[in-house]
């Protein structure tokens, strides 16, 4: 069903002071696939993202992206090979305008030298303008990101990820704190993005996951509890037990 594996986690374990945040976790995401990750608090969702993006080094196990071993790379290198990340709490550059936020995120040479000599040609301008349109922030282009509403910040951060043109996007709770209308728009935006890159979404909101209509992986105590479509997962007795605390 899936063409080839893009991201591959094999027997990954991470522990913090004896607490096993990830316990022999196995996960494979195909290229171009969209995957939702759910799980109760402390299931290891965010730790998994940290491991993939190089923030946390696993104690054991293998993490591969295409044929590259991520465990030996730093955050910046991992970002540059095409893995973008959206944080749980929207983190945009508050003292920069919306436009500048997108410009900084735009895929380009990240060296000091090239940043000093950087200029915006019309192709780059068009790209930023197109992204602004896609995330519904055209009118806010000159506003400071810090003055945006919570939902707009979430979109701006998704827009920054689009500018990075990643092959794999990790999105942590994109609709937390959003209104229903905003949630719907976000689902549409993510589906749109999923046409060009693989997306892994961590979310609590079941309606949102239903709206995405994708394969779901349930994490519990640092490993995979169940995997399948949402209905199958929701009817899985072990998942029900975990969520109801039985």
């Amino acid at each position: 069903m899936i063409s080839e594996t893009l991201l591959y986690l094999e027997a990954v374990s991470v522990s913090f002071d004896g607490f096993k945040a990830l316990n022999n976790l196995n996960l494979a995401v195909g290229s171009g696939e969209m995957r939702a990750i759910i799980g109760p608090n402390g299931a290891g969702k965010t730790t998994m993202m940290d491991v993939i993006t190089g923030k946390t080094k696993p104690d054991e196990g293998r993490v591969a992206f295409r044929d590259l071993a991520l465990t030996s790379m730093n955050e910046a290198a991992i970002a540059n090979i095409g893995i973008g990340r959206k944080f749980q709490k929207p983190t945009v550059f508050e003292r920069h305008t919306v436009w500048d936020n997108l410009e900084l995120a735009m895929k380009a040479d990240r060296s000091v030298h090239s940043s000093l000599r950087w200029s915006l040609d019309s192709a780059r301008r068009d790209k930023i303008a197109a992204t602004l349109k896609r995330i519904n922030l055209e009118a806010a282009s000159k506003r400071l990101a810090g003055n945006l509403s919570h939902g707009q910040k979430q979109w701006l951060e998704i827009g920054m990820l689009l500018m990075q043109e990643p092959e794999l996007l990790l999105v942590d709770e994109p609709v937390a704190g959003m209104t229903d209308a905003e949630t719907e728009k976000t689902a549409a935006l993510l589906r749109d993005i999923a046409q060009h890159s693989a997306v892994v979404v961590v979310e609590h909101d079941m309606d949102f996951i239903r709206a995405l209509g994708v394969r779901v992986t349930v994490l519990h105590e640092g490993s995979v509890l169940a995997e399948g479509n949402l209905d199958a997962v929701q009817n899985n007795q072990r998942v029900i037990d975990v969520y109801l605390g039985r």
Partner: protein
Amino acid sequence: MITKSLMPLIGKAGAIFLAMLLLVCLAVPSLNLIVPISSPLHLPDYAVTLLGKYMCYALLALSVDLVWGFCGILSLGHGAFFALGGYAMGMYMMRQIGSRGSYGNAELPDFMVFLNWKSLPWYWHGFESFPFALAMVALVPGLLALVFGWFAFRSRVTGVYLSIITQAMTYALLLAFFRNDMGFGGNNGLTDFKDILGYSVQAAGTRAVLFMLSCLALGVCFVLARMIVNSKFGRVVISIRDAESRVRFLGYRVENYKLFIFVASAIMAGVAGALYVPQVGIINPSEFSPANSIEAVIWTAFGGRGTLWGAALGAIVVNAAKSWFTGVLPNAWLYALGALFVGVTLFMPKGLAGAFAGWTSVKRNQPEDVSAMEPAE
């Protein structure tokens, strides 16, 4: 034409700052050299030197603002770069003394003769050449910043910890330079300078030129710093200040960005030190004292962090106040200075620059773009 292309780069406040600087740069030497001594408008020689000192401090404050205001690196050791630049210049002027020293030794500076040294240490060679000394003014502080920054930023030392180790760095240098066998004149440092490029350092003309060069250095470094912070590099650096890990996840190697701006800033501080030494006529280890570096940070905060011109203005105002208070309130000047700091912190939290921006925007009833200011803490 040039002014037109410069305007977006330096901004309105920056343009006013540069215009004032140019005015001072021309007026001070004129009032000193051209206006006759009998005239009440005449500026005495000591005032030229004093103002020249302020300009050097202003450049030091500007260099602190570049790393602190824009990149969030609170360096409490910038005085070390300033002092190293000063020592490089001092070594050149020591070599210029030649056989005119008290001991009449053409090869060795007086303090070496006094210590019974027979030959010049290897690291003193080359300083008889002015271009070599100039290169060292930039290279020595730059190299120290490079090595220090490389270790600190790679190990992701930030915030208070970084401030503390920069203090330790300048303190370690203070202790090292105090030692006679370091070969930098120990406690007394380097002094009794005679001339620079053949011109007597005591002559009014030389002092006027040194003053003008200090203004020029301040102006050039201001424009350079604006170029740095206005580029995409500058926007990355501001982002590092406000959300460092986010910048990493965008794929930027944060340590390289910090290193570049830290080294650039250290070189500016070194240039300030090199201009300072011929004007005050002495460089000794006390310039490395941690209090000096902290003072430079106070000037920056006082003037307005994250504006560059504000930091320079802060250094000038604080030092002018210091000179004035010591004159009119010889017993209470420290209290007056303290009151000034407290007053500015209470009533102008964004420093002088923030207060000016506030006044002008109230007057014109439109918000000033202060996006680069008010850093998130």
